[in-house]
């Protein structure tokens, strides 16, 4: 009678401590909420690529080495489209926009556009190093045409700065190394409140004296996108379409969208839950209590994460709604037990005691299993998932504690009522148990056992088909595919990527053993061969390196003869060309070769992120090893190398998380049920939904991504809740009746509807994700909803069959029931 003992202990603590000192506990919760609220300010949202892995992870160390040598590789690309770019008005507009960006976009280091670029040219043997367009934009068609042709004649600019049809041009913005924090001035508005002045004017720590009139920005990179929006809004031109993208833009907009969607989804889910609770219980006090628990749990959890300094990613949207749904689910169990007893006895305190006794232990078990499901992410080698694991486990436990403290306190308020017109408890019990809903559950309990054969056949058939679909699931971490194109900034990124610019890139860092070797002709020729190889891949949009400069200068110095668009054979000539470029104010040299001529950079823009890059990277490294002289070493870094690593980590992470969640929960079930075979048996209805969902992913072509990876361990953690409730009650009932058949009926009668309600709440709650604009979250919603439905079906159809037929608690005493069952 261990379960009963724990239940009685829980009810003693609940009644003698929590309910007795309800004001003290209410105050304690209020303090926790206020503490949490203060911590919300410290909560950090980080969706950046670098945050995927630990700082000391190899992939980040490589990126850091690259940043140390070549600085910040972030850029923003503004694409201007017009029927004719080369009109005085349109060029004037591009000049004005480029000026504004150069002067007001925070951290802008260099702006390159048709109006803001140097052009190396040779005319009658004289070398011209000057602005492509002087201070005055030509008015005559011949002058304008000349500018267009100057760009189109040079390979380095075509489809990079100007499209082949000359209808699209780019403004390319590079950034300084962005400081860790900056200050922006607060401006007093008419209403007396202060708001942020986003004029692109930022102040460094040492420039600020009175910090009260400034806002400290801990993530300065996030200033770029809103300032860019302001600049683009105030610079508009009829007939010109302007589209902007780049990592600083997409990172910011991702966060902005996620926050907006989290708020919206949370409100929709809360609204749905309130309606459902009202429909189920028709008990306003219980609904109010649940809403307070939800808000307290959410604020406390997020606040604690802020205090602990655990950054959140896109998962914030899952976490917020999950806490809500879980708090509602636990509340339902407590309220259900209270209501049942209150209807029978009319005694409020007695009913609270009953609720504590019968719901606190199974709810604790479910909280622990869900927490273990999430905690399995701690073993995944990806920081955002690890943080989600910690945050969710913490949130689930906080939700449990708050439900167990606040709901009974709320329910304890009020007077006792007379039970059903003075009827006896026995009559009341019968009345409740003979209600239509109870009768339905009893019928279901019987029917579940009778339909074991068809259910078994269906299960076997499903299990045979599923592996085929599971095999088709592909891992993916492409930002555009994950987000889908319902959001404008994603469409913009796609549009720009499909035309001039590129969102994704990777960098090949060539490290030479000694300084001054990077200017050797053999090295640059090997680099040219490597570029040729990379250009041959389908994934490559374009390559850029020091060779572009060297070849361009060589051609220019030979009167623009295209035969000289090659790497010269003389080391001295290369060095002198680069000196000439450096002396004439060329600013790009340090982008492609380091100060000591020991490191070369080959930048590769890609059309799309794809897992085939893994093979490409291996080939590049092999080619570099064989082709470069001086035992030069090639290292691949940048966005796409993080992408490839993420894809691998997703697969590994999924396997690890499922394994850990399964093992952890199975061990818990074995301990709770005090039997290894019964514990393992209890996992069957929980593994089945995971397999079904995995098969569905293959069937619907849903990838294993940063969102869908959450489904399997989460499903194991949540699906097991119903099983726990069923098993704990079944065991209790079996000990009373010593009959599997009766135990099953009683269990269904007492908690059948609670299982259905909590599952329905979970399904409806998660389906609120379907209203988001983010594809991967919609996929998550579909998978979780189907998974929970499958888990409920498994608990209602498979679990009773397993228990009644396998008889895990030994031989039953009531032989009549056996006969009845066989009949």
């Amino acid at each position: 009678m261990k379960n009963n003992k724990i239940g009685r202990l829980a009810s003693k603590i609940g009644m003698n401590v929590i309910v007795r000192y309800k004001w003290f506990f209410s105050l304690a919760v209020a303090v926790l909420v206020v503490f949490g609220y203060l911590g919300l300010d410290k909560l950090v949202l980080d969706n950046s690529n670098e945050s995927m892995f630990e700082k000391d992870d190899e992939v980040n160390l490589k990126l850091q080495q690259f940043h140390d040598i070549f600085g910040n590789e972030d850029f923003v690309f503004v694409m201007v489209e017009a029927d004719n770019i080369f009109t005085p008005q349109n060029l004037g507009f591009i000049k004005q926009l480029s000026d504004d960006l150069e002067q007001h976009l925070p951290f802008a280091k260099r702006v390159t556009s048709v109006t803001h670029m140097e052009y190396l040219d040779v005319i009658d043997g004289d070398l011209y190093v000057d602005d492509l367009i002087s201070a005055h934009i030509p008015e005559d068609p011949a002058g304008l045409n000349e500018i267009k042709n100057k760009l189109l004649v040079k390979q380095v600019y075509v489809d990079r700065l100007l499209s082949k049809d000359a209808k699209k041009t780019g403004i390319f913005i590079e950034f300084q190394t962005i400081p860790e924090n900056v200050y922006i001035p607060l401006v007093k508005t008419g209403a007396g409140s202060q708001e942020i002045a986003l004029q692109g004017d930022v102040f460094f720590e040492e420039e600020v004296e009175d910090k009260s009139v400034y806002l400290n920005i801990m993530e300065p990179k996030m200033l770029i996108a809103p300032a860019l929006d302001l600049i683009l809004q105030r610079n508009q031109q009829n007939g010109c379409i302007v589209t902007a993208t780049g990592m600083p833009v997409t990172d910011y907009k991702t966060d902005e969208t996620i926050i907006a969607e989290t708020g919206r989804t949370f409100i929709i889910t809360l609204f749905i839950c309130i309606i459902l609770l009202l429909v189920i219980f028709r008990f306003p006090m219980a609904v109010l209590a649940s809403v307070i628990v939800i808000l307290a749990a959410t604020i406390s959890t997020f606040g604690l994460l802020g205090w602990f300094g655990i950054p959140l990613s896109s998962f914030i949207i899952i976490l917020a709604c999950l806490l809500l749904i879980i708090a509602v689910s636990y509340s339902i169990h407590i309220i259900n037990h209270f209501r049942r007893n209150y209807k029978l006895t009319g005694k409020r305190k007695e009913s609270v005691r009953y609720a504590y006794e019968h719901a606190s232990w199974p709810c604790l078990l479910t909280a622990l299993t869900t927490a273990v499901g999430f905690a399995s992410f701690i073993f995944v080698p990806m920081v955002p998932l690890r943080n989600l694991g910690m945050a969710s486990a913490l949130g689930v436990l906080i939700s449990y504690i708050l439900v167990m403290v606040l709901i009974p306190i709320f329910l304890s308020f009020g007077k006792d009522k007379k039970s059903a017109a003075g009827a006896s408890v026995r009559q009341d019990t019968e009345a409740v148990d003979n209600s239509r809903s109870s009768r339905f559950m009893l019928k279901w309990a019987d029917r579940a056992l009778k339909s074991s054969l068809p259910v078994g056949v269906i299960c076997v058939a499903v299990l045979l088909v599923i592996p085929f679909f599971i095999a088709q699931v592909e891992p993916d971490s492409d930002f555009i595919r994950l987000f889908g194109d319902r959001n404008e900034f994603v469409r913009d990124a796609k549009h720009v990527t499909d035309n001039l610019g590129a969102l994704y890139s990777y960098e090949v860092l060539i490290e030479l053993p000694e300084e001054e070797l990077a200017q050797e002709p053999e090295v640059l020729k090997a680099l040219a061969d490597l570029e040729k190889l990379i250009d041959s891949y389908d994934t490559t949009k374009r390559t850029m390196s020091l060779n572009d400069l060297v070849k361009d200068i060589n051609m220019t110095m030979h009167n623009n003869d295209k035969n000289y668009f090659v790497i010269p054979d003389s080391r001295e000539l290369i060095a002198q060309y680069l000196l000439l470029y450096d002396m004439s104010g060329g600013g790009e040299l340090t982008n492609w070769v380091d100060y000591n001529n020991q490191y070369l950079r080959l930048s590769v823009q890609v059309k799309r992120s794809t897992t085939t890059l893994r093979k490409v990277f291996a080939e590049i490294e092999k080619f570099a090893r064989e082709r470069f002289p001086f035992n030069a070493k090639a290292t691949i870094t940048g966005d796409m190398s993080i992408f490839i690593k993420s894809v691998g980590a997703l697969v590994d992470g999924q396997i690890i998380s499922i394994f850990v969640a399964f093992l952890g929960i199975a061990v818990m079930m074995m301990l709770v049920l005090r039997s290894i075979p019964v514990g393992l048996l209890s996992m069957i209805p929980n593994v089945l939904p995971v397999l079904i969902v995995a098969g569905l992913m293959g069937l619907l072509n849903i990838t294993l991504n940063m969102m869908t990876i959450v489904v399997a361990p989460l499903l194991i953690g949540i699906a097991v809740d119903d099983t726990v409730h069923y098993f704990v009650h079944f065991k209790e009932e079996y000990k009373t009746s010593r009959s599997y058949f009766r135990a099953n009926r009683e269990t269904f009668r007492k908690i059948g509807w609670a299982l259905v309600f909590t599952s329905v709440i979970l399904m409806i709650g998660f389906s609120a994700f379907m209203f988001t604009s983010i594809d991967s979250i919609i996929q998550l919603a579909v998978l979780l909803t189907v998974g929970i439905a499958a888990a409920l079906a498994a608990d209602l159809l498979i679990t009773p069959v397993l228990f009644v037929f396998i008889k895990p608690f030994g031989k039953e005493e009531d032989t009549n029931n056996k006969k009845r069952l066989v009949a």
Partner: protein
Amino acid sequence: MKKKLIAVSIFCLIVIAAGFSQANRGAGIAKKTFELLESNDDYSLITMVLIDKRGNKKTRKFKMYSKQGSRGRDSFIEFVEPADVKGTKFLTIARKNADDEQRLYLPALGKVRKIASSKKDGEFMGSDLFYYDMEDRDYEEFTYNYVGEEVFRGMNCYVVESFPKDSSAPYSKMVMWVNKDNYFVYKRDCYDSRQQRRLLKSIIVLEVKNTRGVLTGTKMVIENHLEDHKTLLERDNLYVNTGIDDSVFSVQNLTK
């Protein structure tokens, strides 16, 4: 009411007058810096060490001849180091009211190329100095403001702000530390033309040589605060007013 109005007017006049006086004082000091004796011609071996934010150094060594002509100051540069650019020569012939004429000789190519450029904010030899910093400037090109006095590296200095009248100048403002004893500018803080309050770089003269009354900065450091980059410049073998022949500043001299 009338009395108040008069008092306010007097106060305003005092403020305006004080402003004028500060500007005049600043202009007076600046004028003296422009009036310092300049060499007619000079020669030196310049060692330029460029230091990036990681502390990596790049050294360039070149001989530099310069001479005051009727249209401005001509210069001739010949690279000595690094070895692979040795013999690269660069000639600048000053033009009045026009862009300077520049010619380049690359020994590995064996050809002289004329270079046309109107850029003023280009970096001089890849250093932290702009060509603008190297060019002769006139007193009238700026407006001035007297800031105060300050001790800089043990010297009593006037601090004067100057504002370029030309909107295409690469700086919005320069603050000069002028030695009270000899009116030589020992430090110049240059502010970005784009973001006016942002200190772009500081040019600090560490060593000054007096050659027959001509003061020449022979050791200086230029710190680019935005890029976290530094240039050390040393002038050795300085010869002043030795009568360098005009033929040094000729195209023929490039290929010799």
